[in-house]
């Protein structure tokens, strides 16, 4: 039984693409056949986060328009032979694809993959409607900030209006030190306000920047966010893993000043 999952947020810059790359990598690591689809037409990014930008020949619009076969456009990951990326088109815009075509595309992919992950563009216009059209399930990514949570609430309303199956929350960039001193909303506060089930919380972690620089997702590595992403993937596969918010991995200087402040 394959499943199509859309990763969305409303607001830009909260970590949709990073989350898509890391969940895709994690599910592949756990043995699943995974297709990652970048649906942000005109602003292609998932290829760079995955480190596959040099291998693109065809893209999503080429597949939809019939310029190539699906197999020609799918790029195989560097590390996992069961992980593929369908990149977005950089020189077209969102009107190049419609929701019916996206439903057809995801249906076709279901034959060969266990999980199809759609990285949704920011906003609530056609790009969003395209991305959610073929999805069975949605993951809403937010950060503990007023603007991101407000947009997430709007997105949740739109997903419910479209009868999206399961809608779950990922709270990204949590800083436990700031939550502890009362200068950041806690994961519980965010859950209480958005009133949807939590799938996981990711700490604000310097390793993410390093991983994006290198184009290598960090799921499963010995980093706070790497472990949090792996836990999310295991929960998606039905494992019952309690949700904790690990301390973020930060640089030596900030850890030292943090220590001195506590002392």
């Amino acid at each position, binding site marked *: 039984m394959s499943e199509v999952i859309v990763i969305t947020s409303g607001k830009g810059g909260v970590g949709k693409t990073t989350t898509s790359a890391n969940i895709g990598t994690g599910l592949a690591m756990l043995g699943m056949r995974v297709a990652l689809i970048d649906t942000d037409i005109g602003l292609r990014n998932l290829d760079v986060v995955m480190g596959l930008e040099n291998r693109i020949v065809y893209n999503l619009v080429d597949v939809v328009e019939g310029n190539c076969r699906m197999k020609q456009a799918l790029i195989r990951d560097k590390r996992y032979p069961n992980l593929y990326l369908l990149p977005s088109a950089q020189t077209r815009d969102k009107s190049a694809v419609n929701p019916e075509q996206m439903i057809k595309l995801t249906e076709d992919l279901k034959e060969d993959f266990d999980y199809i992950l759609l990285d949704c563009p920011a906003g609530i216009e056609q790009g969003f409607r395209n991305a959610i059209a073929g999805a069975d399930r949605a993951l809403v990514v937010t950060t*503990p*900030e*007023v603007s991101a*949570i*407000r947009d997430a*609430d*709007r997105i949740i*309303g739109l997903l419910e209006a479209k009868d999206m199956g399961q809608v779950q929350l990922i709270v990204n960039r949590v800083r436990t030190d*700031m*939550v502890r*001193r*009362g*200068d*950041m*909303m*806690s994961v519980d*506060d965010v859950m209480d*306000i958005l009133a949807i089930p939590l799938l996981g919380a990711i700490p604000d972690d310097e390793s993410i920047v390093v991983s994006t620089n290198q184009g290598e997702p960090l799921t499963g590595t010995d980093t706070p966010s790497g472990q949090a992403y792996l836990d999310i993937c295991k929960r998606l596969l039905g494992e019952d893993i309690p949700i904790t918010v690990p301390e973020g991995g930060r640089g030596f200087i900030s850890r030292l000043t943090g220590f001195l402040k506590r002392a």
Partner: protein
Amino acid sequence: MYRSRRVFGNRSGEVARKRLKLLLVADKTNCSPEFLEMIKDDIFSVVSKYLEIDRGDVEVGLTRTASCKGSDYVPALYASIPIDGRLLRGNFNAVI
């Protein structure tokens, strides 16, 4: 170091939480916090014609409540207006 407590009189996480709750109600109902303030002012002035009440104790908000007609939930305006304890003794409810 930047001291959030000094600026807002409250920890900024709590400030964010309260702002967000008001904001979401406003987004969903097309009814701004100022609009609720106006309703609250008018309710206060009407009720204070009959009873001794304190402006600071009056609370007006939006919530969801079970509909009288069926099992559905409907949006509702609620007002909590504490009155002088000497007026009523014992526990009872009276509704009109």
